[in-house]
Structure formats: C-alpha cells, structure tokens
C-alpha cells in the first residue's frame, strides 16, 4: 500500500496510464482513502484539461491546405 509521497510520485504516470496493474491498484486504493491526495489528483486532471484548451490554436488555414495538396505528385 503506497503512502502520500509515493502517490505524488505516481500521480503523473498514473494519469498517463503507464503504471503497472499492481501499481495502479495501489495508487487507486490510496486515492480512495486519502482526501489530501484525491484533491490534488482531481486538481491535476483539471489542470491538464485546462492546459490543452488554453493552448488550442486556430485551425490550419485553408490556403495552407491548398498549398500542401498542390505538393502532391501529378497523376500521369
């Protein structure tokens, strides 16, 4: 069973889904019973989502799409 320090170390890999099954089970068990870590886990999830939304860029310009299509090999 992991403690809060280990849970902090595992938090990002847990969110990346790269922990082993056993590690993930330990982390989830800890998150179930530890309010301190659970709050931070929920916060970290929101931050990741917020970062993705905040840096969203405008769609690729149509003109660039046309330029890329024009790079294609002409059909014989």
């Amino acid at each position, binding site marked *: 069973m992991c403690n809060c320090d280990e849970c902090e170390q595992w938090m990002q890999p847990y969110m990346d889904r790269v922990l082993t099954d056993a590690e993930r089970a330990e982390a989830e068990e800890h998150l179930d019973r530890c309010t301190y870590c659970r709050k931070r886990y929920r*916060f970290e999830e929101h931050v990741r989502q917020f970062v993705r939304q905040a840096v969203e860029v405008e769609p690729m310009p149509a003109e660039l799409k046309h330029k890329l299509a024009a790079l294609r090999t002409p059909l014989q």
Partner: protein
Amino acid sequence: MSETTREPDARRLATVARDRVRFEEDALALSDQVYRVARHLVGSREEADDLVQETYARAFRSWRSFRPGTNLRAWLLRILTNLNIDRGRRIQRQPESRPLEEGDYFLYNKLEESGDRTIDEDRVVERLSQNDVVNALSEVPHDFRDVIVLVDIGDFTYADAAQILDIPIGTVMSRLHRGRRILKQAMAESAVGSES
C-alpha cells in the same frame, strides 16, 4: 521489348503510382494534426506554415522510406522536428540547467495559499487564465516543451515522442516529468506572482 515484358512493368508502375497516391492522401489527412504540433514548436504562425510545407514536400519526396503499417503521424512529425532543427529555428543542445524545480503539487499549493484555503479542486483552475498557460508554456525550455507538446497536447505516446525526437524513452519520461513541473511553476508565478 516484347508485349509480355512491358505488361508486368506497366502493372508494377501502376501499383507504385497507386501506393504513392494512397500515401499522399493518408499524409494529407493528418495535416491538421501536424500543423497543430508545428504551431506549438515554433514561434509564429508564418514559421509554422513554412515548416509544415517543407515537411510535406520532403515527405512526398521520400515516401518510399515510409514503411506501411507503421505510424505515419509519428513519421511526419519526425521529419518536421528534424527540419526545425536543420533550419536553425532552435539550437539542439543539452537541456538547459535550471535550479531544481518545485514539486508536482506546487501549483495547487500556491493557489491554495493565495485563496481562502477552502480550495475547491474542481473550480480552482478558474483562477488561471489562458494567458497564464500560454506565457508559462513559452517559458519552458525547448527540450522540455517539445515533449510536453507531443505528449500532453499532441496525444503521442512516450514511444512515439521518443521516435519523433530521436531520444530514448527514458529521456522522454524524465523531460516530461521536469517539463510539467517547470510549466506548473511558471503558471503559478504568472497567476499568483513569484513573491512569498
């Protein structure tokens, strides 16, 4: 040349042409995703436009070196990151040495300190602005930012990011770990200030 010799040649050429058309169509279908990553790797929209065009020009020239069945998106991004380095838009170097960054919970703790201490983890991100994030990301050194852009924004796996950046997977993991901490530290400083 006899008819019987020409016929297999014609068939072979038709097959090659069909494979090339298919490759080009598949590559173009990924252009929005390639553009999105390019926009985060270089400073301006104009630079991103140029970089994406160069990437596709090179990809279409070297299409035979792509192995069907492997990850085309990663293959295209590998070309893009190599071109980005070649063009001198960034200097490939060892990751900058920085003072040891704060822990994983630094941003949470900083926002908690600055608020009323009854932090609501579902709403606390509302204290951050889009500018806080954009400015913070621009402050993350390139080597760390590239990995964050690919994994956290581009949805690439660790293995794909390793292939694209031509670095070991362990390096992807360590740069991601440090890069996220640096990003959150910069977000905290942008949102709350660096005092206290």
